[in-house]
């Protein structure tokens, strides 16, 4: 199983790199020893070689094909208090009788606030991402408290991913902070300093990795509009659209994280997500039943 590299020495010292092995014989490098390989299909390969990368395209196993992932908006739902949240909780309780639910929560206004303070203090994007996790986790505990009578609680992020199949086998659903664990390792955004992978992205990536049945974003708009309906009364609803179609439109704002378009374009298992209005809680159940009750964004065919 173990092989030593026939090109044991590797390219060695000297700035003129055309003849790496010859340079090695000059002895300027430490005797490097061979690279010891474990025999495998990718042995000795550069994982950065495009041909090698392409050769790894392959079918993906679905871990939780019956589970539905829902992201419950922070600012749009949970920050709004009892009047909005209780009916959503009642709808979710109904859904839990029929389906296994993985419920992610947004961070809402507190995350926006900590971003503004953090930016003012000169903190970088990764630190803002680390800070944001606390607000969504607080909201997860709020939602978990309200769903506790149904056996659904917030799971600590440290054990959530690994134990998710076990939890879901044992309970009708789980609640998690939908913040992906990017933290200090958040990607630098192209514009400004707001972390690009927030709770929509966390829900998406989870649903994709676990091969879940659907992803539904529960917010406070009927769907995606061709303009912001809160600012422009003539805005028209777009009931369904593809990633490419949405990119062509180049809308000024989106009711979900723009990075979702990249994630959906690259998805192997998820082929769509639906955005529904939680102010009409019956639409949550309809969406899980496969009905079209908001805006569906499709992966490009």
């Amino acid at each position: 199983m173990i092989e030593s590299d026939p090109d044991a020495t590797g390219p060695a010292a000297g700035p003129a790199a055309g003849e790496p092995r010859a340079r090695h014989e000059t002895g300027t490098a430490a005797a490097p020893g061979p690279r010891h390989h474990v025999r495998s299909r990718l042995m000795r390969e550069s994982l950065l070689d495009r041909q090698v990368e392409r050769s790894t395209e392959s079918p993906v196993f679905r871990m939780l094909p019956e589970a539905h992932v829902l992201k419950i908006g922070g600012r749009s739902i949970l920050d709004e208090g009892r009047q909005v949240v209780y009916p959503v909780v009642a709808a979710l309780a109904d859904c839990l009788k029929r389906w296994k639910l993985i419920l992610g929560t947004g961070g809402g206004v507190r995350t926006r606030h900590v971003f503004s303070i953090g930016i003012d203090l000169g903190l970088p994007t990764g630190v803002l991402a680390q800070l944001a996790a606390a607000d969504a986790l607080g909201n997860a505990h709020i939602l978990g408290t309200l769903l506790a009578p149904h056996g659904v609680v917030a799971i600590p992020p440290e054990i959530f991913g690994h134990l998710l199949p076990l939890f879901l086998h044992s309970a009708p659903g789980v609640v998690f902070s939908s913040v992906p664990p990017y933290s200090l390792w958040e990607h630098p955004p192209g514009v400004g300093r707001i972390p690009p992978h927030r709770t929509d992205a966390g829900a998406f990536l989870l649903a994709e990795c676990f091969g879940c049945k659907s992803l539904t974003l529960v917010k406070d708009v009927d769907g995606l509009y061709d303009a912001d309906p809160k600012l422009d009364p003539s805005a028209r609803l777009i009931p369904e659209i593809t990633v490419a179609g949405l990119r062509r439109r180049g809308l000024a704002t989106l009711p979900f994280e723009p990075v979702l378009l990249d994630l959906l374009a690259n998805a192997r298992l998820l082929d769509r997500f639906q955005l529904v209005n939680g102010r009409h809680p019956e639409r949550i159940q309809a969406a899980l039943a496969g009905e079209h009750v908001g805006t569906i964004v499709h992966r490009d065919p």
Partner: protein
Amino acid sequence: MNAENDIAAASDELLTELGQALVEGSLSDTELLARTGLPAPIHILPQANVVKIGGQSFIDRGRAAVFPLIDEIVANLGRHQMILGTGAGTRARHAYSVGLDLGMPTGVLSVLGTFVSMQNARMMSYLLAKHGIPFIEPAQFAQLPLYLAERGAVIFFGMPPYIYWQQNPALGQGRIPPHRTDTGAYLVSEVLGTRSMIFVKDVEGLYTADPKKDRHARFIPSATVTELAEMDLEDVVVERAVLEFMANATVRRSIQVINGLVPGNLTRALEGEPVGTVISAD
């Protein structure tokens, strides 16, 4: 919005103008996002250097390659603060091969790669243990400044902690996690605002092709991210995500790739000398 739950409405004057806009506005609004770029971010650890030690290219060579580098790291203690990240290497390639065959999602492959880079970090940490240098996991990064101030170095595993949340490569580009140990180490240097990012490998730096396979490969002593994009190389010496992120970075806009098999190269790179390939954003 329900006024009682709304920080903004309850105490308007507590929020900056930007704070008000962030609380009320859309985080997908490019104009609003542009305003979040200033003030410029602080440099959290401006004296520290991030040094990533290759897995396949270095640690898999064992004692012959690793011991001289450890000696050189020790010689630099007290002179240069080092945040040492580890690559994964041949066992990750094995795990990825088996995992792909079994249909593991990219997020699970990311978990497997993390384990291998963690093994390498542990091995390095035992070699440096007598100098009081700890291995830290992501959850312990809050203690990193203390360890650096006290001991001058720490070791971490290079994989970013994305695990199940690792993104897929673009369709058709395979399923190996695109953000691996180069990316994880690079992002540490960017977020902490360190003075350098050095990748220790077993080649001089960047070549026009893989020098282990193509003897006509030409060495490239320095390049910009844009030049690299134009060259459209089939193979590159650092993960492509590093090049993408560097273009968006606010602090760490250059990296150096060096041949760690040559004694003295790491020391010279820590001194700021170009001894390999320097890649920079424009």
